[in-house]
């Protein structure tokens, strides 16, 4: 539920302006293109409001009111407003102890180190998973419905 609230908050932020900071000294450009005019040089950690995205660029407004475009990877989001804890630790602890002191299976299922190392195999769930597998031709139709076009792209050297 908290995660859902976080998600909604995040989406609504993204739709308008998000507080962000520049991670390294970056040029502020007049258009989303490397050959556009430079509006200003932003120093590392400069606070900005991030707005519309276009390709690899994001439109920003600086604290002093200058507007322009910076590369997406030059930004980090959230500013100083860090999110809180999702509340998992607390919920899991409650589930673990319960009144009997043994683990009770309530709604929260944690996936921590201990759980993974001590897990017993669940072949029935694996069987179920295999039933959801999709053949390659069906996935190609799915891609076509999303207007996805396969490209030839090489790995970096």
């Amino acid at each position: 539920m908290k995660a859902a609230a976080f998600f909604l908050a995040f989406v609504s932020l993204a739709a308008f302006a998000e507080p962000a900071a520049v991670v390294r000294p970056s040029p502020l450009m007049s258009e989303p293109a490397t050959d556009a005019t430079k509006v200003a040089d932003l120093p590392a950690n400069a606070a900005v409001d991030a707005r519309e995205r276009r390709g690899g660029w994001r439109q920003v407004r600086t604290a002093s009111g200058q507007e322009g475009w910076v590369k997406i990877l030059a930004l980090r989001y959230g500013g100083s407003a860090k999110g809180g804890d999702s509340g998992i630790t607390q919920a899991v602890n409650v589930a673990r102890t319960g009144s009997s002191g043994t683990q009770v299976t309530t709604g929260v299922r944690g996936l921590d180190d201990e759980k993974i190392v001590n897990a017993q195999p669940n072949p029935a769930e694996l069987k179920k998973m295999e039933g959801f597998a999709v053949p390659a031709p069906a996935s190609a139709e799915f891609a076509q419905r999303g207007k996805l076009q396969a490209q030839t792209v090489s790995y970096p050297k």
Partner: protein
Amino acid sequence: MRALVVILALAAAPAHAQFNLRDLNINKMFDTAKKVVTATSDIAEPEEINIGHDMAARLLGAAPLVNDPALQRYVNNVGRWLASQSERPNLPWQFGVLDAPEVNAFAVPGGTVFVTKGLAQHMQSEAQLAGVLAHEISHVLRKHHLKAIQKSAQTSLAGDALQQAIKDPSGLARDKLISLGSELYTRGLDKSDEFEADRLGVVIAARGGYDSYGLPAVLQTLQAMNAQDSALAMMFKTHPSPTDRLGALSERMQPVLDQYATQPQLPERFASETKKLR
């Protein structure tokens, strides 16, 4: 590959090998180099797939699938399409969303990939899901987990026992091998494997026709979250920091990222197919 370089370097330096002591050392190194070569090449694909199924069954014992068949099929469609763009298109690829609030994703040898519900809830588009799945697919392509399991098994299972563990799914040694595999998810891979999976993941998502910024966008979301959030604990312990991963992508992948930045993101299809998660 690295072992091969060692062998070549050694072969090129016979003139210096005139002292007995040095001969011995070189022979020893040569032996080790040869062993590394066999170790990474002696698990055949059918065995890789079988070991992967045993490991997947264990992970599913730790957290079951989200009970939402339409969601599971959707994730399989995205993942299978991406896998078709890879160098191992014919593995029995399968994808699943685990019912766990933690933010994480897992690749299992042989073509099984999991993302947690907690991670899916922080995504905003199909391109972001594709970026994460493509990262995990890359681990399978490069056999990162398989090689790491073999490496740790070599110190705890003697040669014959390891061979038995690989070939015989019902033996005791197999149990040990799968336990080592499960532990690996709590310890993490080499950081270089994670950086490589990020680079390859960006390429595979772009090959699939998705906005190339899907994976970077997810990393930026994780970067903006409170690092002390317990939902992130295991992911952060087992991976380089999002800041380091974004920095590495920016250094090596900027041309590919820019070239495919305007491909579809499909936020609406993602929102409608994952609506029960919210």
